[in-house]
């Protein structure tokens, strides 16, 4: 495998693509949003159960490429127990990791999510990696509109 492809398709990402965690409907959800990437037609639904301002449970559904599925899967894993503000802070950190904007991302804050650092070398795939995150943000805002990556 050429090194740069290996940076993108890390084993952890391939694993989450094969066996996405927290995949399916969440019957007790009180927040829900749909995300859509008009460029590729990928769709994702994120459902959240918030209690006392904290993410109790979170699941996602939809179809997408390995990057978007793994990103959604790992996002759900890292969201449980977070407040909305903490969720937003993690999204900001994750976004910095993908785009290399401004301050360097904090590996400690990102944890396992650092496996997505290779996406930076594939700018057209950044939207794949952030679709579920945009959708989560819109679910937590309880926005009625469908989130898009545009």
């Amino acid at each position, binding site marked *: *495998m050429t090194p740069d492809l290996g940076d993108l398709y890390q084993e952890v990402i391939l694993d989450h693509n094969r066996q996405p965690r927290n995949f399916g409907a969440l019957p007790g959800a009180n927040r829900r949003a749909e995300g859509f990437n008009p460029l590729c037609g990928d769709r994702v639904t994120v459902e959240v159960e918030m209690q006392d301002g904290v993410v109790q449970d979170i699941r996602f559904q939809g179809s997408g490429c390995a990057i978007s599925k793994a990103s959604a899967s790992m996002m759900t894993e890292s969201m449980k127990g977070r407040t909305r503000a903490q969720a937003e802070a993690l999204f900001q950190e994750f976004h910095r990791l993908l785009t290399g904007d401004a301050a360097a991302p904090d590996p400690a804050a990102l944890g396992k999510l650092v496996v997505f650092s290779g996406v930076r070398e594939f700018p057209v795939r950044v939207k794949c990696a952030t679709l579920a995150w945009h959708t989560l943000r819109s679910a937590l805002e309880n926005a009625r509109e469908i989130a898009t990556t545009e």
Partner: protein
Amino acid sequence: MTVPAGAKTAFDVRSVRQDFPILHQSVFGKPLVYLDNAATAQKPKAVIDALARYYTQDNANIHRGLHQLSERATAAYEEARSKVRRFLNAAEDREIVFVRGTTEAINLVAQSYGRTHLDPGDEVLITTMEHHSNIVPWQILCEEKGARLRVAPIGDDGDLLLDEFEKLLGPRTRLVSVVHVSNALGTVNPVKRLVEMARRRDIPVLVDGAQAAPHLRIDVRELDCDFYALSGHKLFGPTGIGVLYGRARLLEAMPPWQSGGDMIASVTFAKTTYNRLPYKFEAGTPHIAGVIGLGAALDYLESIDRDGRIAHEDDVLAYATRTIAALPRVRLVGTAREKTGVLSFVIEGVHPHDIGTILDREGIAIRAGHHCTQPLMDRFGVPATARASFALYNTRAEVDALAAGVRRVLEVFR
């Protein structure tokens, strides 16, 4: 040995490849394998030179200048119209309208012909395999007019179901708009038969020829269609230029759809008289360089042995079909009896975008996505496909590179 001007030599793909400068480059250290021709085709040097020559020597506005440059530009522009007329075997130059592309050609017919011929309850018939550009203009028109958009279904192999198509031609059908070659499946529709069915009921037919023009011999009089639309950039010409062929009798009766300069005969504040065909439909300064470039592209195609070219293209597609279909976990989408130019496929457990990214790193350019045919993707129950699309300059060796790239995908996504 001297070759007389205009003489054609037997088709030779190696010599054809020499005519396309862009092909000779590396991408990520690998020789470029360009298999995204259905999105846009590459340009021969003859086209690039014609554009440079026009801007270097002849640039002027057309149809009004009294000076030499304007005369030369006008002559080149109108000469290109004659070349298009010959390419389509239309009867008259005035049946050739220059537009931005196939999308604009379809919108022109929808807005001009459609708006004056549709009443509430009338119907427009399309097929499941249409590009969004041959769906949305009719949806908008039908909504405005209270008309109904009907859709002729296709079979699992991607062939149009002719009986179903014919059944949908009813007393309220006012127009049929059908794709000649599907951009997502490669299916070649039996347009001549479809037109016969419609003609028996006096229903005009528009043919979306965007994907057909680079591959097939097009003869609008033999097809007997009323409108034929194509895009220059898929035909080895510049982007931003396309053609609407229209039967003169229909075009004459149609109102203009855009207005301004060039499309008028005389203007007073009381009344405007429209120009004759085709200028009635060419408002404003057109894409003169694009038209001249398209003419150069048609000259280029004309210089190539057509039967040899088509045989070569058929061979490469057949070889690609065999080679790719034989790979594990691969399923072809679109296996119609008659196909040209397109090989769409999916791989079990791998999203087409991941296929596209991995192939890109191998220097292979394909398209991954819904190909602006979302209803068709729904019909096949897939969100997207990977699509390799071929042109006259592609080779069996490039198919082998594609197959090796797909094997690499299978390795990454075990």
